[in-house]
């Protein structure tokens, strides 16, 4: 009997010890950054994309909102650069003149995103004039839209998925920069 009671008490003591520890580890893993990413992403139009993008960057867990915006802008540039690569690849193989025209226009739009929209956003965030960042990132989303519209009369839109990511991510980061106003 005594043994059972002491064993039970030991069990209870152990469970109380381990319970908070396991909770603590979970919190430690997330860090403050984890919560900030989630609360910030809730204010953007594409929560899941926002969370996965920001969490995929090592800076994400310790960044403040401006830092998250910076990460987001970097990711937009990364995705846009990759998509531009796809477009130029398609361009070299394309024969149909209408397809080539649409692809060339998309090259222009993506150049605008990479050369102008993202650098302006990064500068605006860093220097504390975020409104120019909001405008630029909204423009980036519009450029992606414009590219998609070019393919309206084409049988298919070969970069549809990556174009959508660029569009949606730009909209997400624009919302984050908006929080800095």
């Amino acid at each position: 009997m005594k043994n059972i009671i002491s064993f039970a008490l030991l069990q209870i003591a152990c469970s109380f010890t381990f319970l908070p520890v396991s909770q603590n580890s979970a919190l430690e893993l997330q860090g403050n950054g984890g919560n900030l990413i989630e609360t910030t992403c809730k204010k953007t139009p594409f929560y899941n994309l926002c969370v996965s993008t920001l969490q995929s960057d090592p800076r994400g867990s310790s960044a403040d909102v401006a830092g998250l915006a910076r990460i987001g802008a970097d990711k937009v540039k990364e995705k846009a650069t990759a998509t531009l690569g796809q477009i130029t690849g398609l361009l070299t193989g394309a024969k149909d003149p209408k397809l080539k025209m649409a692809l060339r226009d998309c090259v222009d739009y993506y150049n605008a995103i990479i050369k102008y929209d993202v650098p302006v956003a990064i500068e605006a965030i860093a220097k504390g004039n975020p409104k120019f960042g909001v405008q630029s990132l909204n423009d980036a989303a519009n450029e992606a839209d414009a590219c998609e519209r070019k393919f309206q009369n084409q049988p298919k839109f070969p970069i549809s998925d990556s174009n959508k990511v660029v569009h949606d991510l730009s909209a997400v980061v624009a919302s984050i920069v908006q929080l800095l106003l």
Partner: protein
Amino acid sequence: MVDTNPFLQASVSDGSDPIGPQVTRRKPIKEQLSIFFGLLAVGLCVAFLIGNNISDNAHEHENECGSLASLNSMKPELLRPVSRGPAAGVSEKSNRFFAKVDGTFPAYPWNNSMLSWQRTAFHFQPEKNWMNDPNGPLFYKGWYHFFYQYNPNAAVWGDIVWGHAVSKDLIHWLHLPLAMVADQWYDKNGVWTGSATILHDGKIIMLYTGSTAEAVQVQNLAYPADHSDPLLIHWVKYPGNPVLVPPPGIDNKDFRDPTTAWLTSEGKWRVTIGSKINKTGIALIYDTKDFINYEMLDGLLHAVPGTGMWECVDFFPVSETEENGLDTSINGPGVKHVVKVSLDDERHDYYAIGTYLEKNGTWIPDQPEIDVGIGIRYDYGIFYAAKTFYDQNKKRRVLWGWIGESDSEAADTQKGWASLQSIPRTILFDQKTGTNLLQWPVEEIESLRLKRNEFNQVKVQAGSVVPLNVASATQLDIIAEFEIDKEALERATGSNVTFSCRTSGGAAERGALGPFGLLVLADERLCERTPVYFYIAKGSHGNLNTFFCNDQSRSSAASDVDKQIYGNFVPVLKDETLSLRILVDHSIIESFAQGGRTVITSRVYPTRAIYGAAKVFLFNNATEASVTASLKIWEMNSAFIRSYPRHQKF
């Protein structure tokens, strides 16, 4: 409506006609029949294709062009100036309705012809690249000076420095070298917005915001290197800069855009700088004797919760009784003070009129429900970071405003420039309403007027469009007055429905008493047009509310430009006729209602209504009321803005 059927029907009926008389020989019959049917098949295919093509074109045109909803513009008599009587605004065929543009058109391929048309003829803009806020405007030794935020490297914001230009008349500008560049640690990340103050001895100082190498916003002092140079080419930065850093409790990135200073009763200079605490916009206030050492006052000039960061704060007196401007330091009876802020959160400029309490450096709005940031805007279109200065030359207060682009950055970088300044406007207290300021283009703009076209007492029936015979319609100064049919005004039934330009159907949405006004930058077939118009709404108690709007929804076939409808309520007093003034200058339209009580600036980017194809029309899309319009339309000369000619290399 193009009838596509004849082609198809003809071939079909041909095909269904019985074949010709029987031929006796068998083998040749088979050959002939096969040849015949072969040709018929080819003919059918061709006809089908042609028919489809035509129906496609007709379909497109129906969606793009034609009259305003329920309006008809089929062959009305072209109205010539100095009218020979009422216009023949005929309505012949049935109404044509088409849906609002919803962006399903392919993004327009901008060609160089369309893009180069967009550059203005008489609005201030640098030769290329990006511009934003107006800075330090002043008049000195016979010249008006204008400085501005400028990016020397691209047609987008960045690498900001101070551009500089001079003019004798606020219209004909000559570009000078950059006044200040980012060459010190305290402005390394940007030589941002600032204002000029003219001291007792006539000397000038400039206070401006620098974004330091660490991206902290600080205030710096600069002054002309040589006060005897009327062109003020070279500027010196005070070696002890910065003179102000963000005070405790204020974020490093929420401290910018110092104003022109004004004198206190103790003989000190007083300056205000916008900021925010959480979401409350505030204006910090400082006193100084030398612009080097400052004491921050305990209180704030003013604060309004929920308005966010206050950029480009402006603070100035207006006379309640006189029709002239006042020096920034004036105070006393018959004087009210205006606080103006640029709201970072929404990119709009707001002002409010109130009383300045000099003792503790605070200001109280006359009507707190239309306090600054929640009440009246300078401009209901694109207009931001505005700044006034007192022009001691002509004793007027003059307003500058930054007009950004509303097209895509891809187009901006393709055309190589972005942004304009508004035509400078005089500011006067509106004695009739007591709540508004009146803005009006400076009178010097009239020196650009060339040919005048006059149209008197033109009756525009409900549901009609009247073309105006103006030779060249891309550079215009239009002054118009409208009288609405009084009977229709009384007869119209009122309703509870609230009207807003922004959420309305634009000029295509018909009411009993509106919309009516002008169509500018419109091509002959009205495929593209920008209506600038009044809309009168009658409330359920019979009260009339007048709205003034700019409708961009069909301003361009391009889909990558802004298509919003801008506008607002405009106070119209009893016995006032409805009046408007419109400056059309390529891709900018500045429109003023009731003498400048409500103002709207738009940027439009037509693809067809450009060069010689641009026209101007009167229109009345009301269902019941006819209007009578009298207009003067001047074709405007260019201001030939260019580099200062005799300038030596520095």
